């Protein structure tokens, strides 16, 4: 009896040691005294694999779907269509298909597994220093005094850009950086969070993402064209129905390719436009540099001509990761202050913040869909990001007249939030400005914004915002 009571306790302790001190690939009994690596105490909501070499978002289900779709469709193509095509047309077809397939998978894995450009959080001393500076600028506040929003203005190439303060990371975000609420990190040159790729798309993996969707467009069109060719050639010999009977997989491939070609090609076109004008998806949706905002509004980051913009985005220098995932924690290194949620359970592959408290509202809050004080919704922007997704064409948001079904709320500093059930699965994370909502009817152009006065305490707004966002994500995700 005594033993029976002790056993479960011993088991719990064993599990705790296992998750705290070992990485996914290490066995527990060896590494008890080993120093932790930095990824094990990373405060964001990311998952790490291969001892910190691979970094992904927390929700990876859709990524596996992407992989399965690409692998299955390509596999069927190589198994059923290629033998016929190779013998009757040319063996170059499977060869080119193979190269395309390998390139697509390579770029997908690279986009999914790399660090998108996460900005590490401020050390406690830095945070204190910034707070001091902010207080010095704003003056003392009495009770009931609303603290003004924490922003800094910078003049970049003649354009005034507002730098916002991130309450989670305790830094003033560099220009073009944004905080992803799904991953709970600030990401440099944040484009969007792509569930299909299972990661944020930012400065360090944008080119991989773009090459992925571009090559996937080619692969999809390639497979589609040659499967049709195959069926036609067979039909010429044996008749249409028996051709389909001989090669049943072709039907599936055609269906998958047909529905995905629109979205993927559209998305590639959209991102080609973004690259050539050196904008991020985030900026395009908000209309940050649109001429509709004002006469003198232009993009200060553009190099002027689209060739330089393309080269800079695709062939420019690739900055190294700033978060040093595999480094060891030095005992005297200042650790960034964490205030984010993190689940208290630690499955071996998943390291959440051990230090942060669990946010009780996290998974249980119903979504605030309409009415009430909607905080910040998620922007769902067009077009499935990669493969064979829902049959919706991906429309560049800069096309005027794009209408959003559902409720559209525009917030301060042009945060646009739109509930869609139809459209795309990209989640543009709203930035963490402490601004309360003023719900507006859906505008046809996603560029409107209002400036409501500020009512909420920024820090609680922050956690409330996270919860509502997560709730919304839960509802609108696949």
């Amino acid at each position: 009896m005594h033993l029976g009571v002790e056993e479960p306790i011993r088991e719990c302790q064993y599990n705790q040691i296992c998750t705290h001190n070992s990485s996914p690939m290490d066995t527990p009994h060896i590494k008890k005294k080993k120093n932790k690596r930095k990824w094990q105490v990373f405060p964001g909501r990311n998952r790490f694999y291969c001892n910190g070499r691979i970094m992904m978002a927390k929700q990876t289900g859709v990524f596996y779907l992407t992989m399965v779709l690409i692998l299955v469709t390509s596999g069927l193509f190589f198994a059923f269509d290629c033998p016929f095509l190779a013998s009757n047309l040319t063996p170059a077809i499977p060869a080119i298909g193979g190269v395309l397939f390998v390139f697509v998978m390579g770029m997908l894995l690279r986009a999914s597994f790399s660090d998108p450009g996460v900005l590490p959080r401020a050390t406690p001393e830095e945070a204190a220093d910034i707070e001091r500076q902010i207080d010095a600028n704003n003056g003392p506040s009495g009770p009931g005094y609303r603290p003004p929003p924490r922003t800094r203005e910078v003049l970049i190439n003649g354009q005034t850009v507002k730098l916002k303060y991130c309450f989670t990371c305790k830094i003033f975000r560099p220009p073009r950086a944004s905080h992803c609420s799904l991953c709970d990190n600030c990401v440099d040159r944040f484009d969007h969070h792509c569930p299909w790729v299972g990661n944020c798309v930012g400065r360090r993996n944008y080119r991989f993402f773009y090459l992925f969707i571009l090559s996937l467009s080619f692969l999809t069109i390639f497979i589609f064209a040659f499967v049709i060719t195959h069926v036609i050639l067979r039909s010429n010999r044996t008749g249409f129905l028996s051709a389909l009977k001989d090669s049943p997989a072709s039907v599936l491939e055609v269906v998958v390719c047909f529905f995905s070609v629109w979205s993927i090609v559209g998305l590639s076109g959209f991102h080609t436009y973004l690259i050539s004008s050196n904008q991020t998806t985030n900026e395009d949706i908000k209309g940050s540099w649109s001429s509709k905002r004002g006469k003198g509004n232009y993009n200060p980051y553009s190099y002027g001509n689209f060739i330089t913009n393309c080269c800079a985005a695709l062939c420019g220098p690739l900055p190294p990761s700033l978060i040093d995932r595999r480094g060891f924690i030095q005992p005297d290194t200042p650790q960034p202050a964490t205030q984010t949620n993190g689940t208290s359970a630690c499955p071996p592959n998943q390291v959440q913040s051990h230090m942060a408290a669990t946010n009780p509202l996290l998974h249980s809050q119903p979504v605030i869909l309409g009415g009430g004080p909607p905080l910040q919704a998620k922007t769902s922007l067009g077009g499935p990001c990669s493969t064979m997704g829902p049959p919706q064409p991906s429309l560049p948001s800069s096309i005027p007249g794009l209408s959003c079904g559902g409720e559209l709320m525009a917030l301060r500093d042009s945060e646009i939030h739109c509930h869609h059930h139809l459209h795309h699965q990209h989640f543009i994370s709203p930035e963490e400005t402490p601004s309360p909502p003023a719900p507006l009817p859906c505008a046809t152009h996603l560029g409107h914004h209002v400036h409501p006065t500020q009512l909420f305490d920024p820090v609680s707004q922050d956690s409330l915002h996270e919860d509502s966002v997560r709730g919304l994500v839960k509802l609108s995700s696949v």
Partner: protein
Amino acid sequence: MAETHSLQDLRQAAVASKVFVQRDYTSGTICKFQTKFPAELESRIDKVQFEETIQTLNNLYAEAEKLGGRSYLEGCLACLTAYTIFLCMETHYEKVLKKIAKFIQEQNEKIYAPLGLLLTDPIERGLRVVEITIFEDRSIGSR
């Protein structure tokens, strides 16, 4: 050696305060630090010397991020090899970061440590700030 001796002294010295030199975004998103001389360092170091250090750092980062024939070539080559080439060789950026690390160490040994200051490599702070630790005067050996 006098330099290492003073660096070791620093490690046992008490930290009086830290000064943070923030990023300068007026030229866009490139990595550049403000050359404004912080008031807390006035009694410790020469303004010109400090500005020179920061300016050299800025030049090194500009070199790392420079868009030109070399970086394009590296980018295209990497793309053609499906980025496997970086398993064997370092990117240009990483090479320059090593240069920067060496530069900061030199500056610390020669100039800053004898004055009771310590520069922290910005890469350890996510390229957000240049952190300058000010140590208390009394722990440093005789001048």
